[in-house]
């Protein structure tokens, strides 16, 4: 268990990481901020990270899909993040796939539990295997296995 500001982090198992955070607002507002693209864009990429959201489409309903494109000044191309919403229950649950990592991507589940006007948000990222989870942690810095594979191939050609 590890705390960063008001957020708690836990590696729950070999394949799962969980983050929790309490918001002083009803669950429907937290859900609204997550489901409407114009609101989502305001918080998903914090200014301190230096990247900006170039485009964002969220079709937040069970079976719908999403696509995010981000640009960091130090990277030549935009990075795309996309997947499907496996389950959406307005105000309480959002489950989506992360397909930019191929079939090794995590399934993310966000649950919102409201109590006395506050909302406990918990976000779980469940990987298909321990290896995928470890790898994602290793690659978390850039979040892109493909980039590393390319760099890997490049480095291999540079070797004496």
């Amino acid at each position: 268990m590890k705390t960063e500001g008001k957020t708690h982090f836990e590696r729950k198992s070999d394949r799962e990481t969980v983050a929790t955070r309490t918001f002083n607002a009803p669950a429907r507002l937290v859900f609204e901020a997550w489901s409407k693209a114009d609101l989502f864009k305001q918080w998903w990429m914090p200014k301190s990270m230096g990247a900006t959201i170039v485009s964002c489409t969220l079709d937040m309903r069970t079976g719908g899909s999403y696509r995010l494109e981000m640009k960091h000044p130090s990277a030549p191309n935009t990075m795309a993040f996309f997947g499907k919403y496996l389950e959406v229950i307005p105000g309480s649950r959002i489950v989506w796939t992360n397909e930019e990592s191929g079939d090794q991507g995590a399934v993310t589940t966000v649950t919102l539990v409201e109590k006395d006007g506050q909302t406990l948000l918990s976000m779980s990222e469940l990987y298909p295997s321990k290896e995928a989870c470890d790898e994602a942690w290793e690659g978390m810095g850039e979040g892109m296995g493909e980039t590393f594979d390319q760099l890997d191939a490049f480095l291999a050609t540079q070797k004496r």
Partner: protein
Amino acid sequence: MLTVNHMVQYKHIQVDDSFAALSDPTRRGVIEQLCRADSSITELADKFHMTLTGMKKHVAVLEEAGLVTTQKIGRVRTCKLGTRKLDQEAAWIENYRQLWAARFDALEQVVEELKRKEKSDENRR
């Protein structure tokens, strides 16, 4: 002139190198092996059923990334774990936490704004 920005980018390149180096299962195996004990390239080649040339290449990638250091004593090149870079990987995990913490802070602001709006709409009614 070396600016702060360059420093940051240089750091990223170093970290990219380490991740690339770790993206190969044999190289991860070598790291695990070296966690247990220092080994010569010949020993590593035997252990991973590889040719000496093949293992030399893997070790060179790991050395380039600063994950492994090697030292030649007589005819034997001994490989050791380089510790410094692993700290940077730990730093990336730290970055993941920081990203989500910052995200949730920003989400809180958006939610607060929605709350304010809702309240002022109610008052107007």
